[in-house]
C-alpha cells in the first residue's frame, strides 16, 4: 500500500445524508475488472442510460475533476459491505473522505486502500460546507501526521485517529504483515481456548 501523504485539494461537497454503497457503485459493476474502476464511482448519478453526463451532479462539474477530498453528509457509505465502493472512490482520485459520521464497514474499508476517513464534528462539517459554498474552488489541506484539516480562511480542526491505523496509513504498512508479527499470540489463544469447531465435510 502507498504511504499516505499530506493532501491539498478542492473539495467535492456531497451534503446529502445516508449515501449508500449501492449509489457509490451499483452492484452490477461488482463483477467488472478493477482496471479503470473510477468510472463506476457514482455511475448512475453521473451518467444517463445512454452514457451521457447528467447535468447538475456535482462530480460532473469540471472543477472537481482532480479533487482528492470528499466532504459528505452523515452516514456516508451505509448499506452493503462492498469494498468496491472504496475502489471506485480511490480510483476516481479521492484520498480523504470526511463526514460527521461514516458507516462502519465503509470506514474500515477505507484504511485498507490508503484512503483516510475522517469523522468531523457536526459543527465543523457544516462550517466547512458553508465556507465552500461561498468559495467552491477553495482548497482544503489534510495533514495526517498532525491530524488537522485546514480550510480556506484558516478554518482548522483537529481530528481523531487511533495510533495503529495512523501508522499503517503513514507508512503504507499492510495489516496482514503486522498481524503475522503477532502469530505467537494467535497460537497461544488457540492453545488456551481451543480452535473453533472444524468443518471437514
Amino acid at each position, binding site marked *: 500500500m502507498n504511504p499516505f501523504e499530506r493532501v491539498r485539494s478542492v473539495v467535492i461537497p456531497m451534503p446529502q445524508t*445516508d449515501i*449508500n454503497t449501492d449509489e457509490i457503485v451499483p452492484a452490477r459493476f*461488482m*463483477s467488472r475488472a478493477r482496471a479503470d474502476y473510477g468510472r463506476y464511482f457514482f455511475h448512475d448519478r453521473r451518467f444517463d442510460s445512454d452514457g451521457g453526463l447528467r447535468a447538475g451532479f456535482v462530480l460532473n462539474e469540471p472543477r472537481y475533476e482532480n479533487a482528492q477530498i470528499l466532504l459528505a453528509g452523515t452516514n456516508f457509505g451505509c448499506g452493503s*459491505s462492498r469494498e468496491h465502493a472504496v475502489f471506485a472512490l480511490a480510483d476516481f482520485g479521492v484520498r480523504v473522505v470526511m463526514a460527521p459520521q461514516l458507516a462502519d464497514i465503509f470506514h474500515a474499508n477505507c484504511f485498507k486502500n490508503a484512503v483516510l476517513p475522517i469523522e468531523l464534528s457536526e459543527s465543523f462539517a457544516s462550517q466547512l460546507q458553508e465556507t465552500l459554498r461561498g468559495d467552491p474552488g477553495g482548497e482544503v489541506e489534510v495533514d495526517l501526521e498532525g491530524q488537522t484539516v485546514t480550510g480556506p480562511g484558516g478554518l482548522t480542526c483537529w481530528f481523531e485517529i487511533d495510533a495503529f491505523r495512523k501508522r499503517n496509513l503513514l507508512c503504507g504498512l499492510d495489516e*496482514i504483515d503486522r498481524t503475522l508479527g503477532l502469530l505467537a499470540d*494467535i497460537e497461544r489463544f488457540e492453545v488456551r481456548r481451543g480452535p*473453533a469447531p*472444524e*468443518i471437514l465435510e
Partner: protein
Amino acid sequence: MSVAHSPRTLFAKIWDAHVVATTEGGQFLIYIDRHYLSDDLPQAVYANLAARDLKIRRPPATVAMPDHYVSTKGKSLADVADDERREFVISLEREAKRNGVVHFAIGDPRQGIVHVVGPEQALTLPGMTVVCGDSHTSTHGALGAFGFGIGATEVGHVLATQTLWQTRPLTMQVGFHGAPGFGVTAKDLALALIRQIGVGGATGHVIEYSGATVYGMSMEARMTLCNLSIEAGARAGLIAPDATTVRYLKGRPYAPTGAEWDRQVEEWLRLKSDLDASFDSRVDVDAAAVEPMVSWGTNPSQCAGITERIPDASPSDQIQRALTYMGLEAGSALEGIPVDSVFIGSCTNGRIEDLRLAASIVKGRRARVETLVVPGSGLVKSQAETEGLDRIFTEAGMRWGEPGCSMCIAINGDQARPGERCVSTTNRNFVGRQGPGVRTHIVNPGMAAAAAIHGRLVDYRSDLR
C-alpha cells in the same frame, strides 16, 4: 482489579473471550471462529494471498458457497447468466478445493444464501464470532453469535490469520414493548425500529434485542430481526440464546452431539447480559402500535404502516428526490398503489416460515402480476416442496426458483425493468437496487403475497386467516 466480576453485556462476554491482542491506539485483534466465503468477492483477494505465498490459516473454520451470482432458473453452472459472472462461481469452488475448505456447490441440496444456510446447518453456534464479506452477516446474531459483515481486504486477513483488527463497538439495547398486533411480523418490528432511529441510528453499535416479544419469536423471526440490524447501521444484532435457540440447533448437521452437546448447551444458556450490565444507549419501540410496514422511499427508514399516508409535512430535498424516484406524492395513501412485480425470498425473508406465510395468502388464488418466489436454501426449497407450498405458488402463476440471493441484489440475471414497481421481501429499497430505475417497496412475505394477488399494495391482514 476484578474486571471479570463487573456486570457485562452479552456482547462484552463474547468480545472479551475473543481478544487475542490489543494496541495502545485502541485496536483489538479478535479471533474469528466461523468465516463464510461467498461468490461475490473480488478475485484479487485470492490473487493477493497467492502472490504473497500466504495459505489459509485454518481451512476448517471457513465454509464456502455461491449465492449472489447463482441462477434461480437451473441447478448447473451453465445456468449462470454469463461468463464474467460464472468465473466468480468457478473460482470460489477452485479456491475452496485447493485450500481444503468445505464448499456447498450449485446443485448440492445444502447450497443457498450463506445467512440462511449457516444457521440451518448449525455452522454458526452461540458465542461464536462469525464473519463474511457481506453486510447481512448480522443475521447470525439471532443465535447469540457476534456476526458482522466485513470488506474484501478483511476477508483476506481472516483467511491468512483467522483474526481481524477491530475497534470495540458500543452497545445498544433495543426493547419492544407490548404484544405485536395480528399480522405484525419481525420484519415489521425491524422496519419500525429503523424508521424510529434512522439508517444511521445504530452506527458504531452492536444491538442486543431483549424482552418478552423477542424471546417469544421463532428462530426464523429472530434471524429476520437481526438481519435488518445493519439497515440501522449497526455493526451486529444479538439475541441471547434460550430454549428456543437450543431446540432449533438440536440435531442439525454440524451441531455438537452427545456429552459435548450437553456441555455446550450449558455454556450457551449462561450467555446473556448480566442484570445490571449497562449499555451505551437504549431504544424502546412500542410494538403494540406497529402495523405491517411498507417502505415508500429509497432507504429502509422511509417506511410507514400500510394504513398510513406518506408524510407530507414540507418534504426536504432529499425526501422529494426519493419520492420523485419512487413516482409517489407526499401525503398520498400507501394502500392501493398499483404494483408491477413481486419478489419473495432473500436472507431477510427466504426461510420456511416466510414461505408458509406467503403461501397462506396465495392458496387457491392467482397472481395478477409477475411474481418470483426464491427459497433461501436447497433445504428450505425441499421442505417447502414436501409441504406443497411450491404448488400453491406455481398454481397461482408464480415462478418457483432455485435458491440464491436473486432479486435482492439483482446481479444473477433476475431483475425488474426500469420504472417498474416491485414489492419485495428484501432488505434494501435503494435507488437501482433491483435494477436501474426500479422502484422497490420492502414488506413482509404476507404483504408481498397479497400485493401479488391484488396487483396493488393492500393491508394483507384482511386476507390473513
